[in-house]
């Protein structure tokens, strides 16, 4: 396990640099930030001065070298927009996103496992139809519908929940619910599919022949076999959330990384963008390592790289 981790961490280093380099380079292809930061009437001299101050007049390679040298010293530069250290902005936003994503995915996975297994228990039955239909319908709806309707109903009309904000447990309800529906819908489908296969495997019969109850059969025997595809997809969905739940962050005023990233892309706030991508990339790489470790935990065949 340790060697696995070590190898994975090392093999993640190069892609990480690729990501940082890519973001660094591509961001600089998207136009001159001077327009955004200087008044509309700024003179060419002001622009030149601006470029010089931020090093944009240097060749890209030099800029990247400087940047790397900075990063090594854990200095991620300063936001063009807010003049605060980029790292501060990112580290402030990231926990908010992580919490939201974590809460959402936990609920989505739990819910999807229950509903998906229930649907898979008798494929094509009424229960299956109802579960699949409602979850996919919900999942394919534009998320802002939920968000805005949720606010109008639960905050404005009923007054049960705050419209937005981050304070208090009640403030979590609507954002999490809004975020939840899509991962939930997708996962229900994936879990269902995998469970249908797993439940028709011979070892399920063996489990039943021991007198195992249906719950034990489903959750004790089938689920672990059905888990890998669900795990992969859940991982991707989590990554989607880690990369930012932009709509939810926007609507509910959740100060997360998604909005920060979008703002910094649209505002050409390179330092923040780079820091944000670096942090999310590290998280994503770490998440994938965790997922791979989960595969291995779930299935010893993976652990040993053995074939049957």
């Amino acid at each position: 396990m340790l060697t696995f981790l070590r190898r994975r961490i090392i093999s993640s280093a190069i892609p990480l640099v690729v990501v940082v380099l890519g973001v660094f380079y591509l961001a600089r292809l998207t136009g001159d930030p001077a327009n955004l930061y200087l008044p509309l009437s700024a003179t060419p001299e002001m622009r030149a001065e601006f470029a010089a101050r931020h090093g944009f007049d240097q060749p890209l390679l030099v800029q990247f070298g400087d940047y790397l040298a900075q990063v090594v010293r854990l200095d991620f530069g300063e936001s063009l927009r807010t003049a605060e250290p980029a790292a501060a902005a990112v580290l402030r936003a990231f926990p908010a996103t992580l919490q939201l994503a974590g809460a959402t995915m936990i609920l989505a996975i739990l819910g999807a496992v229950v509903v998906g297994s229930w649907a898979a228990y008798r494929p094509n039955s009424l229960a299956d139809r109802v579960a699949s239909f409602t979850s996919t319908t919900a999942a394919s709806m534009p998320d802002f519908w939920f968000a805005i309707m949720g606010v109008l109903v639960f905050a404005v009309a009923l007054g049960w929940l705050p419209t937005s904000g981050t304070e208090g447990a009640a403030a979590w309800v609507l954002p999490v619910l809004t975020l939840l529906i899509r991962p939930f819908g997708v996962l229900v489908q994936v879990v269902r599919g995998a469970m249908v296969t797993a439940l028709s495997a011979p070892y399920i019969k063996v489990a039943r022949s021991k007198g195992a109850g249906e719950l034990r059969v489903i959750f004790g025997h089938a689920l672990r076999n059905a888990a890998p595809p669900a795990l992969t997809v859940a991982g991707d969905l989590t990554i989607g959330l880690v990369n930012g739940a932009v709509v939810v962050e926007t609507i509910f005023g959740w100060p997360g990384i998604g909005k920060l990233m979008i703002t910094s892309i649209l505002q050409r706030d390179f330092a923040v963008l780079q820091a944000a991508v670096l942090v999310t990339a590290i998280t994503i790489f770490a998440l994938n390592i965790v997922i791979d470790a989960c595969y291995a935990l779930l299935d010893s065949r993976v652990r040993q790289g053995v074939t049957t």
Partner: protein
Amino acid sequence: MNDPVLEVDRLAVDIRTPAGTVRAVREVSFSVRSGETLALLGESGCGKSMTAQAIVGLLDPVAHVAGGAVRLDGTDLLTLSPAQRRRLAGPGLSIVFQDALTALNPVQTVGAQLAEPFRIHQRLSRRAARARAVELMERVGIPEPAARVGAYPHQFSGGMRQRLLIALAMALHPKVLLADEPTTALDVTVQAQIMELLRELRTEQQTALILITHDLAVVAEQADHVAVMYAGSIVETGRVAEVFSRPRHPYTRGLLDSVPAEVARGATLKSIPGSPPDLHSVPSGCAFRARCPIAGDVCAEQRPILVETGPGRLSACHHWRELTDD
């Protein structure tokens, strides 16, 4: 003599196929007593596994019991609720499935799988159940059981997996054990061990054993009674020695004639010509008639029913008398 523990009465199993529902098991009846072994013989594909699975109530969802009764100690299992059946699965009836190589859950340790019956039925602690699992592994001759209890099925060879399954089925000392070709993947030394084990189980625990196998030698050694199936029906039953020495059904005889041991190497073995009927179009009359050397006109018209041909012997052949002299 004691009453039979398990009585199977006119059991019928239907399978739903794309081309319509077919009957794979037709009115199979037999019974076993505690401590006795009944061998179920028959052409491959004749419905032995179906019958066994129907008895334990674990048919594939495509198949379902279409009639009959399965009585364990007098209670008809088919009328029980799922929960009641579950309570019997293990201590009452247990089964060794035929697909030994895929029947173990690939993602659980064999220890956990072997411990499960104890956890379910005896509510043992994890640790205690695991200890029992180790014992079981030891009994079926897995080397280093304590070390391998944490291993996964793929780390065992085919034969070892088969042994694990047998261990699993024996775990709770069932009243009736159905073993569907339990020793096919085993070498003879282990096979002998397993058979010894089953014998012990039978004598010590008075377990009734229903043994499905193609190995006539095993049947001869192990079984008290034999039931021969053909195309979903039982065509002959009786005590092993009698049936083997004086078969009263042409199919049984054909089977016995096919034993390779008697023939010189490389020579053609005898076999029953032709193949069993398609389940979709089982002909009227006797299902075996197309392959039968002694079939007559009556065989095409009338389906033979099991008739008593001697003490404790039944045969479903119109011409069983013609075979008695052989």
